[in-house]
């Protein structure tokens, strides 16, 4: 199956925020009134109801000039996703296109994914059921997997009027990004392709005008060792242990029954249960 990549060239973005609106519109997400942040930026970061946020960064470049930098920020859809690794319910999975999605029916709202995402894009939303009991679910960008299923590009890409975002075959998009960096290095000497290897590469690939840290991004994000330890070692071993315990219980039950059948220590009301 073709792996797709959302290619974001931040140097072409004019900060119109149509991607944010398109996302809310397609995914039926409610508006979130926010406090004034001292800049044009509407939200501090992505939330459970705002899956992409346009960052506005005032940056002083090497020459002492002010650069106004924009970045469409949303889920990176990592190839080795920490959220997928830490999820104890296997609610997070990879699709055949390379996107990372959360199964809302399986999510128990534990928040491990929120804590472990190197890019801080996942958030929990609180709900109340009809009995007033509170519960939580994790939410983030799905890369519009429901649209990809129908052969359509993600809503944010479709709406981008400057061509800052494109969607397509992974290899083609990465080549495009590399070519673009060469073109803009005269104006942005620190320009780079952001497709971090520490998470196996991502399915949202950026051309950044400045170093990742300028955008508040980790220079070299990694899947936390504890996450690897949890998913690849602790969970299987735990299951093995559970299997062993269950076997022991079954064994004990069978032995007990046999013991009882022989009529030793049998109560009238049916065995050793403490009713």
């Amino acid at each position, binding site marked *: 199956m073709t792996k797709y990549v959302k290619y974001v060239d931040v140097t072409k973005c004019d900060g119109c925020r149509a991607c944010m609106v398109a996302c809310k519109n*397609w995914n039926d997400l409610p508006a979130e009134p926010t406090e004034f942040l001292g800049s044009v930026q509407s939200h501090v970061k992505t939330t459970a109801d705002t899956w992409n946020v346009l960052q506005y960064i005032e940056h002083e470049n090497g020459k002492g000039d002010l650069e106004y930098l924009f970045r469409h920020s949303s889920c990176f859809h990592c190839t080795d996703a920490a959220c997928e690794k830490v999820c104890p319910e296997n609610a997070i999975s990879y699709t055949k296109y390379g996107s990372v999605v959360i199964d809302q029916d399986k999510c128990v709202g534990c928040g491990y994914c929120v804590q472990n995402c190197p890019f801080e894009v996942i958030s929990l939303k609180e709900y109340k059921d009809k009995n007033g009991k509170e519960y939580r679910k994790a939410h983030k960008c799905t890369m519009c997997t429901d649209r990809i299923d*129908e052969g*359509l*590009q993600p809503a944010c890409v*479709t709406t981008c009027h400057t061509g800052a975002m494109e969607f397509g075959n992974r290899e083609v998009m990465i080549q495009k990004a590399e070519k673009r960096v060469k073109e803009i290095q005269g104006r942005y000497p620190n320009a780079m392709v952001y497709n971090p290897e520490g998470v196996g590469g991502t399915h949202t690939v950026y051309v950044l005008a400045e170093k990742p840290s300028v955008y508040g991004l980790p220079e070299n994000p990694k899947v936390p060792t504890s996450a690897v330890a949890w998913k690849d070692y602790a969970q299987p071993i735990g299951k093995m242990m559970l299997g062993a315990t269950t076997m022991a219980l079954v064994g004990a039950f069978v032995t007990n029954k046999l013991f009882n059948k022989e009529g030793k220590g049998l109560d009238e009301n049916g065995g050793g249960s403490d009713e």
Partner: protein
Amino acid sequence: MIKSVVSKEYQDLQEEIVELQKQWKLDLDPEAVRPSLEDQEALNAGVPIAALTVIDFKNSLFLQWIEELIVTLERYNPELETKLAGIIGLLDKETAIRWMDEARSFNQSYFASFASTHGIEEWIPQFLAETTLRPYLQLIAERVQGEIHHAVLGAGCPVCAEPERLAVLEEEGKKVIHCPRCLAHWSAKRLECAHCGNEDHKTIKFLTIEGDAVSQIQVCEQCNGYIKIIDTRQYIEKPSAALLDLNSIHLDFVAQENGYTATREEKLLN
């Protein structure tokens, strides 16, 4: 591909036929069609370019294509084997040329009478003729594409006269009408009826299907014409006009059930 009302099997068959036609077109010598754009008067009156084109039909190719087409059809529907048997035998050189000519002028009654004379199902002769004519039409369209900038109102496709019923939105919202038959395409105004030229925004309306983010039907209250408009900017891969037309067939049903047609309708004035 967008979910379609057309069954997957039929979509696959059509996709294969479109692929065959592409291959067949490559078999043709580009000089096998010689379109003439000299008669401006005829062109302005809406005579399709295909009617002003000299075509050298190659009988051997025609028979080979019919054979390939029959094999494909039978693979998808083995029941057709008996219905399609013996058809090749009926196609001498003269009949073949006649088929191409009649398909070019869309002469349904000729094909209906051919079918009844030879005791075959009515759809078969016209379907075979139309399918094998298309590579020629597509080659004509390819050769004159550079010269096609607009269509004559109410005359349909300037190359093959197929009624205009499919437009796509391309980059920057440009509306381009595509002919699903010969694959010619030309630009059109966003707010203009392709059939009667009406530009009055009060009488041009749009019908949309709930949950369908890419298509709309533009209808004209003046001439009762409609055209499907598909926003192909949203597609990951752009499908060919023929498949786009097939997969949006539900829009034709909706438009026609609401009283619109893909051709111009002269309204009686008081």
